[in-house]
């Protein structure tokens, strides 16, 4: 089975099936509702794109959220100025984040290691601080950029007069809210998976891996590494911009806090949690974090009491008291504990767990499973 997964059409088909059937298999987990499904797909793209830089080249960017923010702002401006159709919005989002990524990458890639990380962090924090305050005319600061009734929307106006309420984002007439929004994001995610897979298997991807394991040696063999890392940085920035514009597509609002360092840190955590350098690991990490953020934070005492009502009274009280620490306002604690447990017991993240599981179940099959990811899952430094 795992051997088959190495074949592109099979891999793609299985991946598509898993993604598109998410509403089915997430129902028992209580995660089947459009907003969370959309977030799963979008942050999956974000993490997957981040992994192209971090997983392949080893360059740890701590400012990737800036591109997410730029993508969102560009998309919302496209909705405001031109049309509610999502295609131009996505195009603008990817384009502008690509430009930003090119410029920031051009400067930051002059340094490596921690110096590179801090440069990207500095750029992202500057974007965030300015967007929150002095750039308010462009970003609408704290409140976030939203659609208004006064927006010009010139292309839409050529075809129809403005309605009474705010228009919705659409893909040639299909509304981008609810489940249709999810399927749109899901298809984009599948395309991104395809692209990302191709990059991983291409000579370009192998060159990047070479840079990761020893940049100097790559230099000695005659490679000029900069164009390669620069390209990887821009591609990864464009993935982030795509994710950002999809956030705006499913919910036309762009807030500055999307660019804050905590958001950049989050994608780093997602990637490491899932498994650096693996194809789908970062996406799994993203799902896990988003799941905790949205589902665990929603538990309150009343729901806990309901859950434990089958226990005898004193036991139920104790169970509610203890579990109450980890859910609701304590959901951060669960996340922190989870981070530690995974990294302590599963170096290599969720994908490592998967590999061990496969090895444990299938004996020989596991070894093969390793072949796909182990090639790229070297420790990143």
């Amino acid at each position, binding site marked *: *089975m795992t051997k*088959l*997964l190495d*074949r592109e*059409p*099979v891999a*793609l*088909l*299985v991946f*598509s*099936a898993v993604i*598109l*059937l998410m*509403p*089915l298999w997430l*129902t028992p987990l209580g995660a*089947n*509702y*459009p*907003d*969370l499904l959309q*977030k799963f797909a979008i942050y999956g793209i974000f993490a997957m794109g981040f992994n192209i830089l971090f997983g392949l080249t080893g360059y740890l960017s701590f400012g990737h959220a800036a591109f997410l923010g730029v993508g969102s702002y560009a998309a919302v401006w496209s909705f405001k100025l031109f049309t509610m159709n999502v295609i131009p919005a996505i195009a603008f989002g990817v384009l502008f984040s690509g430009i930003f990524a090119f410029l920031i990458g051009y400067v930051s890639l002059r340094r490596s290691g921690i110096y590179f990380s801090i440069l990207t962090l500095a750029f992202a924090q500057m974007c965030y*601080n300015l967007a*929150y*305050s*002095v750039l*308010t005319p462009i970003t609408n*600061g*704290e*409140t*976030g950029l*939203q659609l208004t*009734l006064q927006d010009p929307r010139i292309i839409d106006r050529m075809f129809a007069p403005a309605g*009474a*309420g*705010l228009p*919705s984002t659409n893909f040639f007439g299909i509304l981008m*809210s*609810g*489940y249709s929004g999810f*399927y749109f994001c*899901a*298809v984009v995610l599948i395309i991104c998976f395809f692209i990302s897979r191709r990059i991983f298997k291409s000579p370009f991807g192998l060159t990047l891996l070479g840079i990761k394991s020893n940049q100097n040696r790559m230099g000695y063999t005659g490679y000029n590494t900069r164009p390669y890392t620069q390209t990887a940085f821009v591609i990864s920035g464009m993935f982030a911009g795509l994710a950002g514009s999809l*956030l705006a597509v499913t*919910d036309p*609002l762009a*807030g500055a*806090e*999307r660019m804050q360092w905590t958001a950049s840190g989050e994608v780093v955590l997602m990637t490491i949690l899932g498994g650096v350098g693996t194809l789908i690991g970062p996406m799994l990490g993203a799902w896990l974090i988003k799941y905790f*953020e*949205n589902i665990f*934070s*929603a538990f*309150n005492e*009343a*729901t806990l009491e309901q859950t434990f009502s089958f226990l005898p009274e004193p036991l139920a009280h104790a169970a509610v008291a203890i579990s109450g620490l980890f859910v*609701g*306002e304590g*959901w*951060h604690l669960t996340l922190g504990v989870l981070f530690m447990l995974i990294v302590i017991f599963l170096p290599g993240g969720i994908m490592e767990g998967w590999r061990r599981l496969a090895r444990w179940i299938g004996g020989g099959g596991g070894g093969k499973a390793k072949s796909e990811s182990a090639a790229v899952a070297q420790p990143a430094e």
Partner: protein
Amino acid sequence: MSKIALTRRNLLKAGAASGVALAAPMSFVRGAYAEEFCNMPTGSTVTLGFNVPQSGPYADEGADELRAYQLAVKHLNGEGDGGMLNTFSSKALKGNGILGKKVEYVTGDTQTKSDAARASAKRMIEKDGAIMITGGSSSGVAVAVQGLCQENGIIFMAGLTHSNDTTGKDKKRFGFRHFFNAYMSGQALGPILADELGKDRTAYHLTADYNWGWTQEESIKNATENLGWKTASAVRTPLGAGDFSQYLTPVLNSGADVLILNHYGKDMVNSLTQAVQFGMREKQVNGKNFEIVVPLFSRLMAQGAGENIKGILGTTNWNWSLQDDASQAFVKSFGQEYGFPPSQAAQTCYVQALLYADACERAGAFTPPQVIEALEGFEFDGMGNGPTLYRAADHQCFKEVLVVRGNENPSSQFDLLDVVKIVPRDQVTYDPSIFGGELGPSDVKKC
């Protein structure tokens, strides 16, 4: 699984499969086509969504809001002593839930971030079937969630939000605010400042560099300049600056004799603490005592500034020391439940929950346009703020505003604010057109 793999389907077939998958989950959406409007309660219960900050700087305020909501749910369902239901001028609520349906609730964490707040509100709407969303502790979140609720046809009862924009340029048909705003703070505080400090004063503003800070700076500046004050300077400080010393030292030799801190939350705690350390309370300028003013005061936050709030003037929406029946009834039931008095955030949230329930009762339906109609122009009393009007033009409540001063001799750790004056409603009422904005339509929306 392996069988599918063996047939080696290509992309085209994957497309077909996705079509099937696309159709499948649609049938799982709860009666999406049968209902009249989004999340119409069909069973014997009705679900409200309490969206409050549970992490981040306002977590304690959020916790207090949640306590107030839980108390409100109890009272609505006829448990407990009924709190302000007994003093509320409208007698539509009978303590049997809303329109006979038992009130249930779901909670979520806004994290005081627009994205997280919207995600949480969406979960309540899409998954939990909440018919109304309420709560929050900052204007950015209120405006963001209000916009979302407008798009989804869900009523939003704002929690603590003080920016003019919430019911000004960003007002929405589905959004309602009970809390007062920066403009009202300015109108209420101005005359008191003139009385207490004189008309010949020069003010120095330190303003949190974001939306709310600016609207408050503008409102206070206008109000004080109309009374003859001069403004030496208005300086923007980054949100969460922590150490404000570099903004405070220029105040010392600027010639200003009043420092106005347009900060809230942690920023307020830090800038006030540090301003006092810089000796500003003991300072004399132009023969007058130097004064510090914090236009928006919160008792909960003021605890963080400790001794430093003594004698500082500001405004607040409500304070537990008020002596009217409604306030006392609320303080009593809240205090008995939790052992300490409620904050202003708790009061506004409690009242908002009751007002929504009452509007449904009076409208005789949960249908949003009818509930909106019942709330618009609603005149009521007995909720702790004196006679109050929910103005139809901008969905802002007009009621008394409290001007308070940090208590010099607190009798307990909660007794931090002295009410200097209860400013009557007429004095803080303004023309809705000054802030612009449009409410938008009140169409029924389906999920």
